[in-house]
């Protein structure tokens, strides 16, 4: 399976099964519409005749030879022989956990998928006792996995920061005994950040996600305090301080774009101009009826904006500027292995979410969906059948994914989105797919452009 497209002056051909990425001339681009494996020694006469109206016959033949060579090198029209690996997709140790430390929030962001923090289940803070049980659960279920990930999530985790500190201390105290290494992360809206919290976060958290939507008016229009006023002026200086003191450790400023800011590249650059260099701005996930929802109607605008953003980033790089945009980051040589790409995010199998009551869900997006409650830390239940169901969910059990060129990049997409918006974890949420594919096309084009720049230098 190949996927070819034109973007920003480049003709790009992607070979799905090998991950091969090729920049081709117009002749190759057109020739690929007319030939397919298995190949003959020479370009079929009818194809040569058809294209010789536009290209010299000699070039058509030499181009055909190059295509055949790449086919023989197994990086063009390569075979899909991954299904045999997919069969080994069985239950794995639990290695990552999203800890809902606070089902409460001090902001009232209109688009919040957590129903302004409580996930529709009432405002609650996690106790240290429950947090401790979560750590014990992770230690017990993690088998031979050495790196354990624990994300403090909410609601707003800083509303229960003493418990965050206690849990970190407890987890660290057990690392040696179990031969594990905890990697903590925290996602915060920044309202309660102060010097002490910044110091603790920068010391203990391997990644921190700072929620801010970009331009002040865009942010304040939707990320509101309880009194209705915007939060931008409070959070921006705190985020700057945190990042300044953080050194080389990972962080992201992370925004959401909606129908109200389809010119979201302005928000990305607003964050960049404020001094941030690790930026993620992502499409809102919500019911299509919501006033800020992104729908099919907005699709062409979003596509154009992703193209504009990718071109602006490249232009910025030409002038020496540099930042990472999370959804355009792609490592074509050192990325995840094919097995990881088959399995996807790992929710419900390698990854679970824990609520303040100790309820276990496949991930934070499933929290509150009773049919997907996997168990509870207090009563020791953990539904292994459901875990096995998630373990067996991969790109080859998702009919639409199986035949999609992007399957090894998104790995079957978000199971929660699939369930909530398409009715089943195995049904692709087509709207998300379309955005994902556009982002990939942009990201791959950027690789081509950067390579060209390097060559020119």
């Amino acid at each position, binding site marked *: 399976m190949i996927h070819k497209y034109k973007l920003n002056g480049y003709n790009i*051909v992607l070979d799905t099964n*090998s*991950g*091969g*990425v*090729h*920049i*081709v*001339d117009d002749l*190759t681009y057109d020739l690929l519409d007319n030939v397919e494996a298995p190949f003959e020694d020479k370009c079929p006469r009818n194809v040569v005749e058809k294209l010789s109206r536009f290209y010299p016959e000699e*070039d058509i033949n030499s181009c055909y030879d*190059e*295509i055949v060579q790449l086919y023989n090198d*197994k990086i063009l029209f390569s075979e899909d*022989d*991954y299904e045999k*690996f997919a069969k*080994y997709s069985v239950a794995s140790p639990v*290695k*990552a956990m999203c800890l809902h430390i606070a089902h409460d929030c001090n902001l009232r962001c209109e688009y919040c*998928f957590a129903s302004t923090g409580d996930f529709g289940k009432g405002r609650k803070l996690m106790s240290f006792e429950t947090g401790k049980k979560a750590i014990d659960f992770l230690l017990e279920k993690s088998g031979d996995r050495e*790196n354990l*990930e624990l994300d403090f*999530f909410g609601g707003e985790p800083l509303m229960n920061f003493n418990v965050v500190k206690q849990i970190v201390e407890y987890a660290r105290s057990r690392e040696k005994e179990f031969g594990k290494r905890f990697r903590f992360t925290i996602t915060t809206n920044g309202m309660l950040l102060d010097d002490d919290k910044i110091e603790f976060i920068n010391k203990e958290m391997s*990644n921190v*996600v700072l929620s801010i939507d970009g331009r002040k008016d865009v942010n304040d229009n939707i990320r509101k305090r309880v009194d209705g006023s915007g939060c931008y002026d409070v959070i921006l200086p705190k985020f700057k301080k945190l990042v300044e003191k953080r050194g080389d450790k990972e962080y*992201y400023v*992370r925004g959401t774009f909606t129908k109200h800011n389809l010119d979201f590249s302005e928000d990305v650059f607003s964050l960049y101009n404020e001094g941030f260099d690790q930026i*993620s701005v*992502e*499409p809102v*996930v919500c019911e299509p009826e919501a006033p800020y929802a992104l729908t099919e109607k907005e699709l062409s605008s979003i596509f154009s904006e992703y193209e504009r953003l990718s071109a602006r980033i490249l232009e910025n790089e030409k002038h020496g500027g540099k930042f990472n945009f*999370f*959804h355009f*980051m792609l*490592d*074509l*040589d*050192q*990325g*995840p*292995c*094919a*097995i*990881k*790409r088959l399995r996807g*995010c*790992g*929710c419900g199998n*390698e*990854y679970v979410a824990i609520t303040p009551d100790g309820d276990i869900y496949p991930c*934070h*997006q499933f929290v509150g969906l009773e049919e997907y409650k996997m168990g509870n830390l207090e009563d020791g239940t953990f539904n292994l059948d459901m875990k096995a169901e998630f373990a067996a969910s991969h790109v080859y059990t998702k009919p639409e994914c199986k035949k999609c060129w992007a399957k090894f*990049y*998104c*790995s079957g*997409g*978000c199971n929660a*989105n699939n369930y909530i918006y398409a009715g089943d974890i195995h049904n692709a949420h087509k709207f998300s797919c379309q955005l994902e594919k556009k982002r990939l096309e942009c990201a791959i084009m950027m*690789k081509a452009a950067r390579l060209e720049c390097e060559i020119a230098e």
Partner: protein
Amino acid sequence: MKHIKTINKANLKETAKKGGCGKCQASCQSACKTSCTVANQKCER
């Protein structure tokens, strides 16, 4: 090659043979939290 420039060196198929060690990050534990992208992650082996 005159007509085609290949820009990556790795072949995904090679990674299938020795892959699946599970040392890498769970995909949603990074910036995302709302949309799944796996290919932007690192192999940690």
